[in-house]
């Protein structure tokens, strides 16, 4: 009985922190901005520090580049406003399938635009998010937000490698 009572508040606390249909509060991120992030990707008990660079355009979509140690690009993705995904660069660390089903989905969950309800995101504060998915966890910290229009070339899907 005692264990049940201990478990209940923990369950309630956890349920209150992580929502499976998270969407960013209105105005949290400007519609047009360049946003840098630091993230820790945890999978299979191992952790990988990553840097993220996101150009957001109200009309163009989202261009997102992930780099690993020493700036090596491990993923580059363009998500158009209509939700179409273009993989500009993949890597052995993030193959195309992972980018399409993982990176793109998490990107939309945190920064807006996700149309499904599968966004298990915990917002610790306005600059700190944790994505809890089966198989991996992503801890994202926002380092800098520079509001302003982004160059149109970033959102040119004709330069995309694969759709």
């Amino acid at each position: 009985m005692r264990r049940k009572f201990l478990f209940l508040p923990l369950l309630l606390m956890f349920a209150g922190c992580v929502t499976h249909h998270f969407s960013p509060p209105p105005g949290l991120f400007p519609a047009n901005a360049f946003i840098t992030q630091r993230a820790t990707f945890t999978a299979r008990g191992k952790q990988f520090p990553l840097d993220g660079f996101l150009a957001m355009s109200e009309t163009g979509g989202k261009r997102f580049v992930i780099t690993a140690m020493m700036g090596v690009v491990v993923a580059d993705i363009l998500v158009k406003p209509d939700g179409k995904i273009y993989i500009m660069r993949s890597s052995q660390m993030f193959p195309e399938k992972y980018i399409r089903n993982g990176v793109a989905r998490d990107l939309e969950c945190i920064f807006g635009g996700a149309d499904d309800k599968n966004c298990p995101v915990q917002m610790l504060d306005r600059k700190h998010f944790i994505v809890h998915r089966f198989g991996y966890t992503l801890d994202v910290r926002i380092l800098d937000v520079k509001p302003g229009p982004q160059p149109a070339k970033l959102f040119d899907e004709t330069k995309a490698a694969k759709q």
Partner: protein
Amino acid sequence: MKKLAGIFIFAFCAAAFAATNELQTVADPQPLLEKLRSRMEPVKTVAMDFTQDRELNLFAEPLKSEGVMLMERPDKIRWETMSPYQTILLGDENSVAQFEFTGGKWQKLKLGFSQMLARVMQQMSAMNQGNLSAMTNDYSVSVSTNNGFVFIMVPKDEKIRQMISSLEIHLAPDLTATREVVMNEPNGDLTRITFSHEKHNVQFPARTFDQNKPLEISSVESALKNAP
């Protein structure tokens, strides 16, 4: 994964050292490699600041980070980024550890690629000791000169070369100070690491390279403040 490992190694070897446009190729680099090794022989420890500019064709401005690099013979290395985020990478011949400052405290990561990073650290140590010849199995090394020396390393592995075309290590004329490292990619992207405030043979305080509880960098810097 192997390809990625190669790139990491390549990138990190750049950091083991720190231009002009008018470069003249040195016909026989071997005497210079030997000179470099002998010049680095008496250097037991190195401390320097770095600024890293990641220049991606996509983005107008380089993505900057800053920090310090510390080395102690035979194999201890600390690469600490202090801005725009804080992270510490520590390594020696046998192991590596990484810490991230998040949520107001340092967190030790259960690091992926740890074996690969350990190998990287071994190669960094070899380069810090001026042993560039240790790299010739994996890279073609040539030397150019201007108002200093530029060691240019090209990966022999074609798969790695598809992602990293060359690495330039810019050294002072007396070969004892690293000025800059440039990692070039085939598409024109590059990473430029500029070093400054290089100090040799300083006495690092205890726990500077501790892989479980590294000394705060402010304490390390305070101890090194009066070093030449």
